[in-house]
């Protein structure tokens, strides 16, 4: 089975070369038969990659330690779920997952792209094939997951204990669906540049793909943030770590792309810019892969001592980013500029959105790469950490977030800023009230808290205003209003939900940072502690045995007003003997939207234990907002105009509805 997987991987590589070359020449020569090769090859390539991935996963599930990757990252005593998820919990396996998703998207274009112009479809598949070929070669040459060991070891070295968590089952696949999803937008852009024209079907295709990729990336980042929050045991949710930044940059650029693609689809303006953004977004995905995979982040020297993988990805990076930007420089002038618009208009607002989002992306990029570049060039070592990003990224987001509610209320081509402001009066009043309440009654010392809460409420109220205005609240009868509300395009709900989610996330962040409390103390069994109105009793420390670890579980009781226990929280220190690693299992109790968070420290000789407690008000909104944003993207995807094959269905529906509409 393992050799079958290996062989399938080599075949998939060969097919990806065919997928690159044949359709490309077919499109050049306008040869239908050559172009038609792309589709079946893409589907077959996906099937082979899936077979290869399945072979590796079954080696993991069966604990086949004769495979080097399984031996290094698995153990026979691990629960089955972690055996399976361990497949992508390591470098080799995660790269295989990466190409699996890449070929999956390629196959989707092949399967559903029948309504695309033949040359565009052929070129898209060719570019997709080229990306695949580069990464197949990377895996086969430097990161082969199928290498055998002889003699086979009896026992494996265990999966890294921190990864033995449900988060590993969800986070990487979601994240990769997002990362790699942008490859389709990239391929479409390159195909458009090769052809030297962008037509209507281009925009209709690129926008849903951007939405899909963005939706998964949002979910992946939110999920990763929550995973880190509970797994790391110190309650942080975002650290401005280079690896986080690597996933955040494509998200920021992808968000900009999402918005500029709307302008392009609706008004056929910003064509060239949208194309460039699509290239940049996937380039940032590739850059992220390089940063994480090459080891360059630990130090420039570590990268230099074992450069095989890093240099390989750097070559892929140079080839694709350099090549695509060069192509852009050569061909962009051939593309015609689109429609005209007044600065104060929906288009104008979206241009501003892009200005701030792109600047923010560049800021994160410079902050991430500057220390690396400085060390490589001068040998000086500096650090760029959270304080830098707070000072630069924060101020960039402020005007953007203030402007968000205006965008959807402005008309295309020429908007009326005064009318939009009047419609937002209620939202503004609500936000102002929230600010005053925060400043006067909750915390008068922090400007950040009042401003942040006000801004979050402004976003939430603004999103609701958008829906209210579009369903005619205040101007039509309630019955008409309801009918209008139900009849609003799904994309309007999508926009409102996404902006609402953004507001919720911001509310969670500001509330946690401003009103969260913390206590660090030593506790003995039976002692109680109070934190922000919650009383906790430390019941005691109980040893326990897991399948592949031993733990000391500290049990805490939440004491109610009456003095009796109303809930239990337990936090543990786990020891994994195979890797000689200790992890902290945090104890979390969700109360409404807020959480009590307990992290257990070392046990002293006298039996007392170091305990760190946090009260995190509204903290669940941080990730809940992410889910709402995802729901917004899903809603937009269901919009009638984006459905695959929509034109024919629309015609049919229009025909069916016509008699009812006509008097």
């Amino acid at each position, binding site marked *: 089975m393992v050799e079958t997987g290996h062989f399938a991987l080599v075949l998939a590589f060969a097919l990806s070369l065919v997928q690159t070359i044949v359709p490309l020449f077919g499109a050049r020569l306008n040869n239908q038969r050559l172009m038609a090769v792309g589709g079946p090859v893409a589907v077959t390539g996906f099937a082979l990659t899936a077979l290869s991935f399945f072979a590796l996963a079954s080696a993991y599930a069966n604990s086949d330690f004769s495979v080097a990757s399984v031996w290094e990252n698995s153990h026979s005593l691990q629960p089955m779920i972690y055996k399976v998820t361990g497949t992508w919990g390591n470098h080799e396996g995660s790269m295989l997952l990466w190409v699996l998703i890449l070929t999956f998207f390629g196959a989707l274009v092949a399967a559903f792209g029948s309504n695309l112009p033949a040359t565009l479809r052929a070129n898209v598949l060719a570019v997709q094939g080229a990306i695949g070929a580069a990464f197949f070669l990377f895996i086969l040459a430097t990161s082969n997951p199928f290498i055998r060991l002889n003699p086979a070891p009896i026992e494996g070295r265990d999966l890294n204990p921190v990864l033995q968590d449900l988060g590993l089952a969800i986070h990487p696949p979601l*994240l990769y669906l997002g990362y790699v999803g942008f490859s389709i937008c990239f391929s479409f852009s390159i195909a458009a540049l090769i052809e030297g024209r962008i037509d209507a079907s281009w925009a209709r295709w690129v926008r849903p793909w951007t939405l899909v990729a963005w939706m998964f990336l949002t979910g992946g980042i939110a999920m990763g943030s929550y995973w880190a929050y509970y797994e790391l045991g110190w309650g942080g949710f975002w*650290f401005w770590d280079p690896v986080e930044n690597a996933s955040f940059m494509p998200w920021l650029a992808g968000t900009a792309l999402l918005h500029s693609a709307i302008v392009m689809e609706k008004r056929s303006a910003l064509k060239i810019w949208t194309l460039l953004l699509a290239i940049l977004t996937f380039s940032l995905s590739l850059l992220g892969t390089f940063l994480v995979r090459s080891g360059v982040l630990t130090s420039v020297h570590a990268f230099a001592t074992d450069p095989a993988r890093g240099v390989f990805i750097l070559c892929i990076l140079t080839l694709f980013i350099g090549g695509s930007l060069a192509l852009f420089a050569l061909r962009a002038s051939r593309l015609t500029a689109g429609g005209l618009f007044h600065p104060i208009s929906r288009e104008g607002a979206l241009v501003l959105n892009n200005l701030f989002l792109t600047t923010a992306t560049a800021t994160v990029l410079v902050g991430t790469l500057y220390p690396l570049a400085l060390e490589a060039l001068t040998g000086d070592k500096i*650090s760029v950490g959270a304080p830098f990003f707070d000072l630069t990224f924060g101020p*960039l987001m402020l005007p953007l977030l203030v402007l968000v509610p205006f965008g959807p209320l402005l008309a295309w081509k020429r908007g009326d800023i005064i009318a939009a402001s009047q419609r937002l009066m209620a939202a503004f009043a609500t936000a102002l009230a929230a600010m005053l309440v925060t400043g006067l009654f909750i915390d008068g010392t922090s400007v950040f808290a009042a401003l942040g809460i006000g801004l979050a409420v402004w976003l939430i109220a603004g999103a609701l205003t958008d829906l209210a205005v579009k369903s005619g609240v205040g101007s039509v009868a309630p019955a008409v209003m309801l009918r209008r509300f139900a009849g609003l395009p799904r994309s309007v709900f999508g926009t409102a939900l996404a902006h609402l989610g953004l507001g919720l996330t911001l509310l969670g962040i500001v509330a946690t940072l401003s009103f969260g409390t913390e206590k660090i103390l030593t506790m003995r069994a039976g002692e109680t502690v109070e934190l922000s109105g919650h009383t906790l009793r430390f019941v005691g420390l109980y040893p326990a045995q897991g399948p592949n670890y031993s733990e000391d579980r500290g049990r805490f009781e939440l004491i109610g007003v009456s003095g009796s226990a109303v809930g239990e929280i337990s936090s543990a220190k786990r020891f994994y003997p195979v890797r000689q690693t200790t992890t902290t299992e945090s104890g979390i109790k969700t109360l409404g939207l807020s959480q009590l968070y307990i992290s257990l420290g070392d046990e002293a000789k006298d039996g007392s234990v170091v305990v760190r407690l946090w009260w995190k008000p509204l903290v669940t909104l941080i990730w809940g907002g992410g889910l709402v944003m995802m729901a917004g993207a899903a809603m937009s995807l269901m919009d009638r105009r984006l459905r695959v094959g929509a034109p024919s269905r629309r015609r049919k529906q229009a025909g069916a509805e016509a008699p009812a509409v006509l008097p």
Partner: protein
Amino acid sequence: MKARFSAALLVLMLALGFAGSALAVKPDEMLADPALEARARALSEGLRCMVCQNQSIDESDADLARDLRILVRQRLVAGDTDQQVMDYLVSRYGEFVLLKPRFDLRNALLWGTPVLLLLVGGVFILLTARSRRTLATKTLSADEQAALDAILHRD
């Protein structure tokens, strides 16, 4: 040594080798004076644990971070101002210890990028908008105006 590892992309960091986590600031390190302790915590958040990946000494449970936390508190007890503590640490460990890089010529590109890009982008957009507006406000020819009037007054 326990290096802090990434939050969002745990799995991708495997190549770097890291280990779990535990508590950073421990009760026995903390100062009795709450005002002084608060200053120590605030300072700690801006100081890098040099053996960790981009992690502050306030968050790290590495031995070095503990030593630095104790050092910061010693200096504060000795009566140093916040700035003096920072200067002392930089003189001992170099600028690498600062999570917020200094505003100086060497870091001009780092700090300048957001401002510069926003300005250049803003000016570009303004110029494009202006050139487009002159295009857009071109008046209709007599024939076009007549055709428009005909359409507008049809009913």
